[in-house]
């Protein structure tokens, strides 16, 4: 193995046996017979749970009682790299982590790891409610692979980080769930492995504590440690990992820079596209006066794109064909976020066409949403076309196209150098100014 590699995964596959439907009996006699034969059947069934000698990866798909959680997964992680692993539920993320942390053994393939590795698939493994906080720190620490001396050395730091000093000699069963989690994470955060494998343990504690944890993890990455981070929290992955691996159906779908991988993930996950066309005018949304031909989202570089950088402008294009001359049209669109909250709506205000009857033909109305306006996340565009005098809604499509605003954490956005969660539907880059008044002046005024 190459010297600058920390982890080398070669053709890993993992097979599980799944339960088959049990036989049903429609007569008493058959049930009794089944009952008598049961022990032998059960014995065979439970025995077969772990035997895969009869299986080869290439024929595994034909069998109904096995599933391949991972198939032929290979990748390498260099020393000091922070790699995110993303994918939908059942993509094989957890299985991969379990193999890397030696919990389970792959059915095929091999992994070579260079350096001391620790895995955090859960915080607070082995916490016992009857033991005090102090005892649990020692127990949990040794379970995670620390030495007693090491824990003794870091004990004060751990307690300090957790913020439960007052209760450290109280049995953990009297703790609130938040306190328990904080103590558990504090222990985990003080592990000093060269390679760290983490499952979604970040999703614990209150916002403030989450931020503390995220910063701690970032430190870990910056100290030149190798980190493998599995998460559904995409902003966290963007913030921590420069490279990501997308798993899909137990296989590596994409492996590359995080923002590119996230784009692929989001597109495959949502099914919503950045462009929609209606080729056949008769099928297109609309009526005898006007029909929508297409709508698309263009990123700053001019290409149609499902993902746009938070600090860059994007363009919405609505293409339609006027079929009856002489109407005054009003084109507009709504922008909804993932929770269905409307971020805003915008109306065509091009003075060349407002309040002016339009001749027959094809039109493209374009509108630019500036950078540093929408927050991170997914947005849906709903285009609408009305005719005026009388006002009639001719076209209205909900969620016609979708796009994702991604924070690439380059420090140019409204976030600045903050790494925490930034709330709000919009994230404008506002101008700030701070005035400073020396303290003495204030005091004098009061007295």
């Amino acid at each position: 193995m190459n010297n600058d590699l920390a982890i080398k995964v070669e053709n890993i596959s993992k097979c599980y046996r799944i339960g088959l439907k049990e036989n049903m009996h429609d007569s008493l006699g058959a049930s009794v017979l089944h009952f008598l034969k049961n022990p032998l059947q059960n014995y065979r069934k439970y025995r077969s749970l772990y035997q895969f000698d009869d299986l080869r990866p290439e024929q595994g798909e034909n069998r109904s009682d096995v599933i391949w959680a991972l198939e032929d997964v290979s990748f390498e992680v260099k020393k000091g790299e922070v790699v995110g692993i993303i994918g939908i539920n059942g993509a094989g993320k957890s299985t991969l982590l379990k193999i890397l942390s030696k919990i389970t053994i792959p059915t095929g393939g091999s992994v070579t790891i260079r350096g001391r590795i620790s895995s955090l698939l859960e915080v607070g493994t082995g916490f016992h409610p009857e033991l005090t906080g102090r005892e649990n720190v020692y127990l949990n620490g040794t379970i995670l692979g620390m030495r007693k001396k090491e824990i003794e050395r870091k004990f004060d730091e751990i307690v300090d980080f957790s913020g439960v000093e007052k209760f450290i000699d109280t049995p953990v069963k009297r703790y609130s769930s938040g306190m328990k989690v904080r103590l558990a994470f504090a222990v985990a955060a003080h592990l000093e492995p060269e390679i760290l494998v983490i499952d979604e343990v970040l999703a614990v504690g209150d916002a403030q504590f989450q931020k503390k944890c995220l910063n701690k993890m970032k430190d870990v990455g910056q100290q030149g440690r190798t980190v493998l981070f599995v998460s559904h929290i995409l902003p966290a992955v963007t913030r921590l990992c420069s490279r990501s691996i997308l798993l899909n159906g137990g296989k590596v779908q994409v492996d590359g820079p995080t923002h590119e991988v996230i784009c692929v993930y989001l597109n495959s996950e949502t099914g919503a596209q950045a462009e929609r066309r209606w080729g056949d005018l008769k099928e297109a949304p609309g009526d005898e006066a006007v029909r929508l031909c297409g709508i698309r989202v263009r990123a700053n570089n001019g290409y149609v794109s499902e993902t746009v950088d938070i600090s860059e402008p994007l363009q919405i294009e609505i293409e339609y064909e006027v079929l009856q001359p002489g109407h005054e049209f009003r084109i507009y669109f709504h922008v909804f976020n993932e929770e269905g909250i409307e971020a805003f709506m915008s109306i065509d205000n091009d003075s060349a066409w407002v309040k002016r009857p339009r001749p027959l033909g094809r039109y493209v109305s374009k509108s630019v949403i500036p950078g540093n306006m929408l927050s991170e996340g997914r947005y849906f565009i709903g285009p609408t076309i009305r005719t005026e005098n009388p006002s009639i809604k001719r076209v209205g499509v909900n969620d016609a196209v979708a796009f994702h605003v991604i924070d690439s954490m380059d420090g140019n956005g409204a976030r600045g150098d903050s790494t925490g969660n930034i709330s709000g539907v919009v994230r404008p880059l506002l101008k700030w100014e701070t005035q400073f008044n020396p303290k003495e002046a204030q005091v004098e005024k009061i007295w």
Partner: protein
Amino acid sequence: MNNRFGTTLSENSLTVIPPKSGWTMTGFQELKDYRDLFYFLVWRDIKTLYAQTILGFMWAILQPLVQIVIFTIIFGNVAKVSTDGIPYLLFSSVALIPWTYISLATVQSSQSLIQGSSMLGKIYFPRLIFPITPVLAKLVDFGISMFIIVCIMLYYRVSLTSNLFFFPLFLVMMVSIPLGIGTWLATLAIRFRDVRQAMPLFIQMLMFSAPIVYSASSIPEQYRFLYSLNPIVGVIEGFRACLLGFPIPWLHIWPGMVTAAMLVISGTVYFKRMERIIVDVI
């Protein structure tokens, strides 16, 4: 050099998954590396066993003591079991204390993997730690309850003999029984939960298979060898001989020692073989 704690050599420490199969010394090295974890797991078992009780560690004395009293009344005074002339109280206490240890440790050890299943799926440490921990933790109870034997021996003014020199040997033999049976049953219990249902029966059979309430001399001579293949027989006979000063009946002890050693070795080998599938099947 090792995988998890190599702080100085860590740059060169290599972990290969899956580990090379076969019987290597690395398994023992790994156990040694995790001795701090052993310490805290044993500590947890001891501390939580009597947590929030009024009597605390007194229970470790009270439980066998009550049993000894009951056995003395029923088997000593009512049934009048032959004890080769030893007062029944002395006769039964010397046997019941090690037996209590063996039965409790065996039961706990055989359930250890099932009980630890939530931990098994979340973190790796040598799996052998699970069945070994209760075997060690119960030794503390055993140590405390030895106090009963000492008191009863003082009461009957039993004088110590040079036989006491062999006592540690029987202690090792005593520990090896739950270790051997525990690893076997813990491994079997992963796949077949029948183990748990059968456990009380099994323990009861074990108890009457050994000279705890009766004397080994009541077994007909032609069956004595077969009888002493049971390692518990050897432990009880050894305890009685060492503490009460009888000649040690080696002839009836070594077959049990061989069985105990075989149990431990085969149990560990079987455990090691099944270790890789534990998490997937449990």
